[in-house]
């Protein structure tokens, strides 16, 4: 029996540094190697993520063998996802996870299903083994740097942030998180990538901490990814 083929995944983020970190975390959650679909997807920032997502999904569906698309965005000052948002048909217009999921749902609904037994591959039509591009959506609260500090500073959690938001006084700013991670508010890209990789690599083999401290933003991502293992039989 042949080992199952590695999954083919696409990743949409705002910078190569986020991409490097997310890619490592995805590997830890999946517990298996995967290959990346080229070219690298990038958005200009949150407002553009939502805007280009339908086109990206359509592209991945028709033109690539991508099994799934991973999207992780910073929450900035937006509403943080909560378990209440998970209720059926619920959609919080200020929550970026809700909004991204809605775009996934609406876009995929309008794309034809691929046949369960795909035709042999041709160069024009890659052999596509999935019906739909799978979804994994995460939210870094308030920014990826919070995830990087997880396990180093117990005061940096989703709960601390959302309580601060509710009280009208956030416990830390994005700039402060950047200082903590990079030693500057203006890291170069290589420095940002290096630090991102260093920090997320600490979670290898044990994502419990990250999932505990960031139950919605990281938890949603992890739950989406684990559901893939079930679906794809990996």
């Amino acid at each position, binding site marked *: 029996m042949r080992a199952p083929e590695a999954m083919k995944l696409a990743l949409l983020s705002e910078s190569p540094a986020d991409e490097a970190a997310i890619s490592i975390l995805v590997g830890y959650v999946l517990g298996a190697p995967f290959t990346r679909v080229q070219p*690298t*997807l*990038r958005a200009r920032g949150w407002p*553009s993520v939502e*805007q*280009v997502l339908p*086109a*990206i999904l*359509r592209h991945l569906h*028709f033109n690539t063998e991508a099994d799934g698309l991973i999207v992780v965005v910073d929450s900035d000052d937006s509403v943080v996802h909560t378990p209440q948002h998970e209720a059926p048909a619920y959609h919080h217009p200020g929550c970026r996870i809700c909004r991204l999921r809605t775009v996934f749902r609406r876009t995929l609904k309008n794309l034809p299903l691929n046949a369960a037994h795909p035709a042999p591959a041709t160069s024009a039509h890659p052999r596509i083994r999935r019906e739909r591009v799978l979804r994994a959506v995460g939210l870094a609260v308030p920014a990826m740097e919070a995830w990087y500090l997880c396990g180093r500073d117990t005061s940096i959690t989703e709960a601390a942030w959302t309580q601060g938001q509710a009280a009208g006084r956030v416990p830390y700013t994005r700039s402060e998180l950047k200082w903590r991670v990079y030693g500057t508010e203006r890291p170069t890209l290589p420095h940002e990538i290096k630090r991102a990789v260093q920090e997320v690599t600490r979670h290898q083999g044990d994502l419990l901490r990250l999932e505990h401290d960031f139950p919605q933003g990281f938890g949603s991502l992890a739950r989406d990814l684990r559901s893939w293992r079930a679906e794809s039989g990996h």
Partner: protein
Amino acid sequence: MISAVHFKDFKALRSTAVRLEPFNLLIGPSGSGKTSLIEALLRLRYLAGQAPAPGPASALAFLNGPQIEFHFHPPFENVRVTLGCQADELSCHRLRVDHPPGLAGARQWAELRTQLHGIRAYLLDHQAMGAPVLRSAGTELATNASNLAAVLAQRAQQAPVAFAHLVADFCRIMPEFSGLDFRGVGEGHVELRAALRDSPEHLSCENLSQGTLYLLAILTLAHDPQPPTLLCLEEADRGVHPRLLREVRDALYRLSYPVATETTRPVVQVIATTHSPYLLDLFRDHPSEIVLAHKQGNAATFERLSERPDILELMRETNLGDLWYSGILGGIPGD
């Protein structure tokens, strides 16, 4: 004029072809062949001007190195011109012409040669434009527009109607100005000046802002009463405020689609390059005018955006510029 260019082993363009429309906007990363295409056209112009017109039988035994083949629109659809060189040569310097036999074929080639002589390429430089220039240097706009003042001074005299249109367009786009005039300066030089609308003052060319000079140079090309047959403009958005990019597009369309401006002028084929997503946005209705230059490692290929069967679907809810930035169209730097 030129309907397609096929490349074999020319710099990064190992094996690719590009079909050319009346207007073409090239986008892509560094080293993806945008400038190589323009170089090839300039080389074609030069060699076609040099060579004695060969008969169809004179097809010299051709070389094994890089080759660039040009196809043409009617009435030259049966002419093929190929540039070639040996692999170790730095630039192509052989030209092969295949045209129909007989006098008619020779006449076709002679006529095409005249047209090829009209190929021009520009990369504007506002610093060069700022200085006064010898009045006699004004026959044709220089590659970097350094002789702008002389060209406009000559046009004001010899083609006053075309000049008046240019000035009207300029003052419409830059409403702070009410006109252009010229001042003789030492030893036969001429200086361009712009009159301020709400003031008796004139700004001399060296005091005009960069954006104003770029726009003026583009309008000078767009309103040229004797335009090139094919015009290349690198970095068409250079120095232009994003809200004025529409004017750049319109000015270039004026050359490629003269009917659009209700004038009777020859069609000028235009090839422009840009890195501006906001300029790209403005071609949403004409994806066939966008050429993406893709780069894989050291090899580059061209693709016309309209060749993507799903492009209309992809553009539905997204600006073309952001779509390009996202990566799904290609034409982005590798990682």
